[in-house]
């Protein structure tokens, strides 16, 4: 029997100064985002930098859609890693499974909120999408499969995976005891129960992998099926989105794991082997993505299509060049570092975190470049070349979403173990 005074693991329920400070920062960002969004609600999206294609020479999709795509990409890796751990029995990666799951749930929430931030009629959108959504529209996949379905699946996965921990924690008295009891839902840590969970999660993981491919492909289809926008129409969009999702998600997970390892002193549980695995996975995805990117380039370079050429010019030399080359460099440096670590067999967490941050910079940049230039520079009609730069409202909303993500993660970490508990 557990002792009454025993502390809950991983700092649950204990509020430290650092945590408070971090929370406060996240809160400030979130509130600022809320304020920015309120401006948009009151005055309309005229407060954003987005404008109509054509005579307004603008881009009707901007930062919001770029970040929706980014957040969904990040969500990929979490559940993918969790599922792979279960499917391939990667036992020593288990310590990061929970945080991967939580990351997925939060990123999906942020992606969903990003869509709400983008649409002109957010209230009506909820009802009309549920009522009228057309399977013919690539948005159907984005909204139903990629966001709602996937979110539900991820929540179920997180829930079932956490039952054992909840049951253990429920034994410790405290203000969350009721919550843990609810979560545990009568879980008894018997071999049968473990066995049952093993089986359930195996099938769940098996089900989630194809869903994941479908979800991210549909996201790619949102762009890839549009004949009218040079730079979008193409078969590589769907697999490209999938690969980029892996890159950004794994990068995120690496950073997250490193932070938690540091904060909670989990050097033992999250050992270098975990990072080696993550590093090699990231290497594979980054390499695949770079390959796709080069293929896409070459195709555009050889294309005689003037709209494509104009677009490519804007990317390589024009007003988007700085984002483009920043992204390329942010991909190539990690690629070199990852290859180096793989070749030498020496894995440094510092370099890995650096790579994780860089690939996310690249991910954000590339998402932006997928969404925006095709609108401003990709007109097949002889309109004036457009321009787009986000306003403080859009940046504020995006920062608010990021703040909210951090906030949710920190709050979760204070009520539930961020790693699987061995024994209480």
């Amino acid at each position, binding site marked *: 029997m557990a002792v009454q005074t025993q502390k809950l693991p991983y700092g649950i329920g204990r509020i430290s100064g650092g945590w408070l400070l971090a929370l406060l920062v996240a809160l400030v960002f979130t509130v600022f985002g809320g304020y920015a969004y309120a401006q948009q609600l009151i005055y309309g999206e005229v407060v954003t930098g987005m404008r109509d294609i054509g005579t307004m020479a603008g881009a009707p999709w901007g930062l919001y859609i770029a970040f929706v795509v980014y957040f969904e990409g990040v969500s990929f890796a979490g559940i993918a890693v969790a599922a792979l751990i279960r499917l391939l029995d990667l036992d020593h990666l288990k310590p990061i499974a929970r945080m991967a799951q939580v990351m997925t749930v939060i990123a999906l929430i942020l992606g969903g909120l990003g869509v709400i931030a983008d649409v002109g009629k957010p209230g009506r959108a909820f009802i009309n999408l*549920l009522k009228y959504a057309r399977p013919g529209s690539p948005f159907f996949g984005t909204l*139903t499969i990629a966001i709602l379905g996937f979110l*539900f699946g991820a929540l179920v996965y997180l829930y*079932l995976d956490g*039952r054992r921990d909840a049951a253990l924690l429920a034994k410790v008295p405290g203000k969350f005891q009721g919550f843990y009891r609810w979560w545990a839902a009568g879980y008894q840590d018997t071999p049968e129960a473990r066995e049952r969970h093993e089986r359930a999660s195996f099938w769940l993981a098996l089900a989630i992998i194809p869903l994941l491919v479908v979800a991210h492909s549909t996201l790619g289809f949102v762009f890839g099926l549009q004949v009218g926008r040079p730079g979008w129409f193409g078969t590589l969009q769907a697999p490209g989105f999938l690969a980029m999702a892996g890159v950004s998600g794994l990068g995120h997970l690496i950073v997250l794991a490193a932070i938690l390892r540091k904060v909670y002193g989990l050097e033992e549980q999250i050992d270098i082997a975990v990072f080696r695995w993550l590093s090699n996975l990231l290497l594979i995805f980054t390499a695949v993505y770079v390959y796709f990117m080069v293929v896409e380039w070459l195709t555009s370079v050889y294309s005689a299509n003037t709209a494509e050429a104009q677009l490519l010019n804007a990317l390589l030399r024009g007003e988007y060049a700085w984002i483009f080359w920043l992204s390329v460099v942010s991909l190539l440096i990690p690629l070199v570092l990852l290859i180096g670590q793989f070749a030498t067999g020496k894995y440094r967490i510092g370099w890995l975190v650096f790579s994780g941050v860089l690939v996310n910079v690249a991910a954000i940049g590339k998402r932006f470049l997928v969404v925006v230039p095709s609108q401003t520079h990709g007109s097949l009609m002889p309109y004036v070349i457009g321009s787009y730069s986000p306003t403080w409202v859009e940046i504020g909303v995006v920062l608010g979403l990021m703040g909210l993500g951090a906030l949710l993660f920190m709050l979760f970490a204070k009520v539930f173990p961020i790693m699987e508990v061995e024994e209480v």
Partner: protein
Amino acid sequence: MRKTLSLSMVVLGFALQAISYFALAAPLGTPTSPAYADPRLPFAPLLFIVGVALVFLAAVVYELMPDKNAK
């Protein structure tokens, strides 16, 4: 019983997805008339999501439902 129920939930969930996607939502194909704008059954997209949810909930049912044999 438990297995049957969760399996049937999976089947039902997928079936619901398929039916709502192909039969109850707005028709697929190149839209040429107002008929392509409206679902054949209102809130069919919600049914699709319910279908997705059912599949996942099957796992919850599978895990949480007490085993008759055990009692």
